[in-house]
């Protein structure tokens, strides 16, 4: 396997690991604020690593730039979505979880 492909594979596997961690967090964390914490890692690092690996595999600057734009759009969307839902939850009195 060429070095570039190997590096791309490592990047994508790293990204997939973050997706897996995000799913576990979504299912196992105790309240909505904790789950937000897990989800934003997926959008930032999970998608970032997967797209970086794909960009490397394609070897084309145009493809890499399109994937970069996609990543920036998702970053923007997830940051805003995280802020909006956390603020609404706080405003509507959803209590943060505390260890019993």
């Amino acid at each position, binding site marked *: 396997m060429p070095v570039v492909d190997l590096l791309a594979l490592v990047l994508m596997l790293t990204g997939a690991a973050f997706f897996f961690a995000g799913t576990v967090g979504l299912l196992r964390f105790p309240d909505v604020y904790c789950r937000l914490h897990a989800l934003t890692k997926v959008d930032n690092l999970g998608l970032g690593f997967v797209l970086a690996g794909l960009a490397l595999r394609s070897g084309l600057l145009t493809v890499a730039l399109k994937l970069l*734009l996609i990543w920036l*759009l998702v970053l*923007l*969307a997830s*940051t*805003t979505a995280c*802020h*909006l839902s956390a*603020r609404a939850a706080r405003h509507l009195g959803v209590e943060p979880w505390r260890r019993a």
Partner: protein
Amino acid sequence: MTAILWAFDVVLAVTLVALAAGVLATASLFRSIVLFIVFGLTMSIAWARLDAVDLGLVEAAVGAGLTGALLLNTLGHMRSQAEFTPEPSHGPGGRLALALAAGTAGLAIGAAVWAWPDAFAGLGDRVDTHLAESGAQNPVTAVLLNFRAYDTLLEIGVLVVAVVAVWALSPMRGRVLDADPPGLVLAGFVHLLVPVVVLVAGYLLWMGTDAPGGAFQAGAVLAAAGVLLLITGRVAPPQLQAIVERGAVVLGLVAFLAVGVAVMAGGHAFLELPDAWATTLILLLESLLTISIAIVLVILFAGGRTDAAHPPEDAAP
């Protein structure tokens, strides 16, 4: 490779059926809507696997994006009304009858597909043979805007009728400008995102003649930008009495009819695009259709007419 894709398809198909069942089975409207949004996303992946990227694009923009916004907006509107009770509208007998009817229809369609003759290859070959005359490199655009332009004409007609119905049936309850100011983050988000979304819509429109994309995809994406502007109080909902909005709604339909009739002057049949002009006419029609589709979808979201002569009782003083 094949084994992996086979497993992917099985998981996808099972998930789609489970999501559809979940959408119908849950008593909570909100949960149903969220499942429906996920269904749209999953459906878009299914279209990608079926090599129907044009449909995947529509499903991504409409199913995963706009439909969710429309349904959530409707739910919020319903809850704001005092008499709203989320009672299921059918008793057990009615539900059984509906399930039987839907099941029978499903089995009939399944039987029809099963009985498909092996030798019948569909119309794909004929489209490919005549693609060069269509003025478009993308076979889907060639069919929609040229070979079967009649269908597309009627579709845009349906959208215009939908707007007329919404305007006739639902007076808007005083949403002049969304009064609740968006926070800094949301305002900044809309400020940054809307120009990019407009650019993406233009890209899809331009790509549509030789790659997946086109008026419906671009219109739906553009409408999402409109929804964001509307919901954060940046623009007022479209007005019934404004000539610009009325014009934009019928623009696509009128242009379609005008082109259809104009080509008859050159001795062609109705909507039969002359080969030499086909590319130009398709791009022109798609551009105008994009505007109409976007404004129609925004109006469906805004949900009715605002009547300046008779301000609604709960409008801000």
